[in-house]
């Protein structure tokens, strides 16, 4: 903790003094290249194998397009639900006092620790035809969304929580004393302060939902054109020996996701600038 604070203190100074900057940048770029860029480059290299014509043909096959539309759509809905529910949970965890809060706080991260295939199996047992509640939403898009909500829950909560902790309640009190209602305080004071964090959480949740495989492979039912998501479609292409097709769809999906993430990032920066101005 102490070292964290020290780093935080040093940060602005590090920006002006170049001493450590070069090394840090070097390590960052090197690490990023090795761990992220290299595999991505290899993937694109694999997709390029059949030529541009074949790439486009593979990526725009009706099954592939249907799976991609479903994946992106469900991921977007999942991210939006997370934005609302995640912020609410973070709010309760920071501002409310209740017994067992520490436990609830720890439970938030559990979806990350659970192997996602186990999550899928459990959700199937709960919401499948033989489930104890008599609701059968397995093998539908609702079931798919539910599985994704489960695995992406921590992102927005964990992004918003620290910001909310740091948020000065004096501002809210001042606004309230000036006659703002509680909704007004939320809309004008709290929400603008939380928005960048919410957006980071939303971006993470969206990206994770796009790529998720384990949690959805059981509960979605994998019906082509109906409930088959891209990750399962890609898996099928690999199993059928069509590596080029798998790589093509992956690359297109990554490109679209990158576009969405860049947009979210740009919006966040614009908001931050807009705010401080």
């Amino acid at each position, binding site marked *: 903790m102490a070292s964290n604070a020290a780093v935080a203190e040093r940060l602005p100074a590090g920006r002006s003094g170049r001493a450590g900057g070069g090394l840090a940048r070097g390590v960052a770029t090197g690490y990023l290249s090795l761990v992220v860029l290299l595999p991505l480059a290899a993937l694109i290299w694999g997709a390029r194998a059949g030529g541009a014509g074949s790439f486009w043909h593979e990526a725009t*096959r*009706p*099954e592939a397009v*249907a799976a991609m539309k479903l994946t992106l759509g469900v991921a977007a809905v999942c991210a939006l639900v997370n934005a609302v529910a995640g912020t609410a949970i973070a709010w309760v965890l920071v501002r409310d006092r209740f017994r067992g809060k520490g436990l609830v706080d720890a439970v938030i991260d559990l979806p990350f620790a659970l192997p996602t295939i186990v999550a899928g*199996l459990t959700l*199937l*047992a709960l919401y*499948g*035809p*033989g*489930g104890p509640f008599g609701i059968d939403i*397995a*093998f539908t898009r609702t079931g798919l969304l539910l599985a994704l909500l489960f695995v992406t829950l921590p992102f927005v909560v964990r992004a918003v929580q620290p910001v909310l902790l740091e948020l000065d309640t004096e501002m809210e009190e001042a606004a309230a004393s000036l006659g703002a209602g509680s909704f007004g305080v939320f809309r004008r004071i709290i929400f603008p302060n939380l928005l960048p964090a919410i957006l980071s959480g939303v971006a993470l949740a969206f990206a994770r939902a796009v790529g998720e495989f384990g949690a959805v*492979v*059981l509960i979605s*039912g*994998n*019906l*082509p*054109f*109906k*409930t*088959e998501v891209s990750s*399962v479609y890609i*898996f*099928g*292409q*690999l*199993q*059928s*020996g*069509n590596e080029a*097709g798998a790589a093509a769809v992956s690359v297109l999906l990554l490109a679209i996701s990158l576009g969405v993430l860049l947009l979210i990032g740009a919006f966040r920066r614009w908001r931050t600038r807009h705010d401080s101005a």
Partner: protein
Amino acid sequence: MKAIWIALLGVALLAGSASGASSGGSIDLVAYSTPKDAYGKIIPAFQKTSGGNGTSFNQSYGASGDQARAVAAGQAADVVALSLDPDVNLLVQKGLVPKKWAANAHRGIVSDSVVVFVVRDGNPKKIKGWGDLVKPGIQVITPNPFTSGGARWNVMAAYGAQRRAGKTDKQAVAYLYKLFRHVPVQPSSARDALSIFAQGKGDVLLTYENEAKYAEKKGVHTEYRTPKATLLIETPVALTKSGLRKPAAKAFYKYLWSATAQKAFASQGYRPVVKGVAKGYKFYKPPRLFTINSAKLGLNGWTKVNRRFFHPEKGIMAKIERAIGK
């Protein structure tokens, strides 16, 4: 920091001792997942024989296609046990398995099974033959044939049974269209399909006899029916070129056809391929059994069947999925 170095040293020592043991003869077995329990019995029995004395095993189990691709990409393997021929042929193409891998008395086939119908307790929907699967309101569970190599046995059993009943190729393909309209979900693997069926989805599950027996053993409330016309599933085992250089691996490969090993397969629900072993186990003999090489039924081996039915774009199954999806 010091602790890390000590830990690293420990790992190095462990690795050293492991490789030391392997000099006595270690065999890398790469297999598909369902026969794991059978190998769990066969390996200790083999280690008690003179040929297997002192050998150690590195075992790897997973989906057949994944395992074949892992070996093709460099995973060490002396003996490969896969769920269908094309997975072995992938390794032949990569030069890792000799072309004549199937040149033994059993054509490289170590165990058999058949495609069966798993139904609910008491068979409430009275499902007996292939015609019952496409009756109104019947839901059939079978894995997606593009994600599950094993699901292809089911599809070809359905097609072959129609041909065996005297239908033309066109009529048999039409049956597949009809059948897949009764498939509400397409799980990614045979085991997933079993989980989903056990959860209560569907009226009938298409699977292998050994999976049906496994389900019974696990206490899933099901029974199974063997249709009179069905496909014989043959699962291959091959020695890789590295395995051919190891006497212990060769001895193990041979041992798989011994009475002890064949009994171990039989006890896990697989049909033994060595005559005489099957006695004492109940395996119903379907009167109209055919194989993937039954040319009269339009089945000309996996290579041709895969190209015609399971090409990811132009295959008959790809067209069926598209027709149903839209």
